[in-house]
């Protein structure tokens, strides 16, 4: 069965131009040497690749290359940002602020900090998924050390006003961490302009390789972090481990391409997303999850009343999409993000996330919408009629 891939918020295909950059660092004739071995020419060439990639990533987020610290991905970046900054600054304050709709890499790190004696305030977003800057302001306390907010939500695609929250934090000398795994290279973000102290980045959501990411750190004044791993002292002693030159070259290439094509990609993908929503809009009982205006181009999350999400997903083997249903996501509960927005368990259970990328086509979108309509109609036709007075 040929499968239409609409799960680009989970991961993306590597761009052939990125693969080319990576291959240059793998073969015996390429720049495969250890980038720390700068005593010989191959090592210096590998180091040059690493530093070129660092500059390419930094440029996309308005940072200088020295601010970029390599990691294995956004999960590690989030952990290092939260655990590292909180443990370093615990004498200054033991309170953190975040939202209920953050990625588990942030929420689970917060839970760990709670076990270590920190207090965490989890803000509830409004029904559209937006956390208002005023909510953050109200939650701040004299002992607040750090605020963590994602730029774009991975399930519903809504965009938070990180610049406003950054300004609030900067005024008060509170560290501001942003998880930009779903936004960097897709939406403008600038660590200077938006007053972001710690920014988590990844490559694989942007047609780069899996297993590599970065944490962008404020330089002046320098942020203190307690490292999570120890060893060879790479990355200024904050993240030991041999640098994976091919992965870093790939991430650099992915960010360079994104910088060049962001505007065109975003416009084309937003057009496809709107086409998809228009085509699905004809399905009775369908509703959009998340704010209709403040959203990233590639993510569309819908709930379809009267259809059980797991059955819908299992009826669509020709589509690679995500669902908020408990069984589909291999968790015990339906999507915690949708429930935080006030969606009922049943509506969370009947949700689908369709996410588009650089290689999505109009034909993909049209076929997917037709197939979803067809299966929704079929599953409804075999369901008992809803009881009178049932609440969606």
């Amino acid at each position, binding site marked *: *069965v040929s499968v239409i891939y609409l799960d680009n918020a989970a991961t993306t295909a590597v761009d052939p131009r990125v693969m080319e950059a990576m291959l240059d660092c793998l073969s015996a004739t390429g720049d495969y040497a250890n980038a720390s071995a700068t005593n010989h020419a191959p090592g210096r060439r590998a180091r040059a690749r690493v530093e070129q990639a660092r500059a390419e990533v930094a440029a996309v987020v308005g940072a200088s290359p020295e601010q970029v610290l390599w990691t294995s991905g956004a999960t590690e970046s989030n952990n290092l940002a939260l655990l590292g900054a909180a443990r370093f600054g615990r004498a200054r304050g033991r309170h953190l602020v975040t939202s209920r709709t953050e990625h588990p890499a942030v929420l689970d790190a917060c839970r760990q900090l709670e076990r270590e004696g920190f207090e965490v305030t989890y803000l509830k977003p409004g029904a559209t998924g937006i956390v208002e800057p005023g909510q953050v302001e109200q939650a701040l306390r004299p002992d607040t050390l750090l605020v963590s907010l994602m730029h774009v939500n991975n399930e519903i695609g809504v965009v938070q006003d990180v610049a406003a929250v950054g300004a609030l934090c900067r005024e008060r000398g509170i560290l501001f961490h942003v998880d930009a795994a779903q936004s960097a290279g897709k939406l403008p973000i600038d660590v200077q302009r938006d007053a972001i102290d710690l920014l988590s980045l990844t490559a694989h959501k942007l047609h780069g390789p899996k297993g590599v990411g970065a944490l962008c750190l404020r330089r002046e004044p320098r942020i203190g972090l307690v490292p999570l791993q120890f060893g060879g002292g790479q990355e200024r002693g904050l993240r030991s481990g041999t640098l994976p030159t091919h992965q870093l070259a790939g991430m650099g290439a992915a960010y360079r391409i994104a910088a060049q094509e962001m505007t065109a990609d975003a416009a084309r993908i937003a057009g496809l997303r709107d086409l998809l929503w228009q085509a699905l809009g004809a399905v009775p009982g369908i509703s959009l999850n998340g704010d209709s205006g403040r959203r990233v181009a590639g993510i569309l999350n819908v709930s379809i009343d*009267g259809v*059980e999400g*797991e*059955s819908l997903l*299992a*009826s669509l*083997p020709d589509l690679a999409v995500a669902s908020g249903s408990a*069984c589909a996501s291999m968790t015990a509960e339906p999507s915690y993000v949708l429930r935080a927005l006030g969606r*009922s*368990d*049943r509506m969370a*259970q009947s949700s689908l996330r369709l996410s588009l990328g650089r290689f999505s086509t109009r034909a993909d979108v049209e076929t997917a919408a037709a197939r979803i309509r067809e299966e929704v109609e*079929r599953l409804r*036709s*075999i*369901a*008992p009629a*809803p*009881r009178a007075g*049932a609440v969606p």
Partner: protein
Amino acid sequence: VSADPRYSAEVLRRLRETPGAGLLAAEPGSVQGCAGDREQGAEVQIACTVVQGRIAAARFLAFGCPHFIAAASWLTDQLPGTGYDDLLAWDWRAAAQALEVPAAKFGRLLTLQDAVRDLSRNWPGGQQSTV
């Protein structure tokens, strides 16, 4: 490798082809059993025609997960030829075994058993043993 390990081939076939789905015309001897609640994630209606104390035809309507829909479909295949006492003896474990339903979904099959019990309560002419 690409087969979904959460579902047996039979569950997927019954989910996608839904043999036995639909309604039966209301006529003398028709009987229905209902159970579940959409809010709880599983709801089913089993409709049968009973001729001379035995089920002659059965159909289902179901809302729920793939295992639940498949089990309702499987049940309607099993019902023709059965009588009142067979309904009382029906056990959800038979469906679980036939469809390789994982333990986490056993609760859904209990909903199906409730529908079979309801069917027996609504048996035409009251409780009539075929033994």
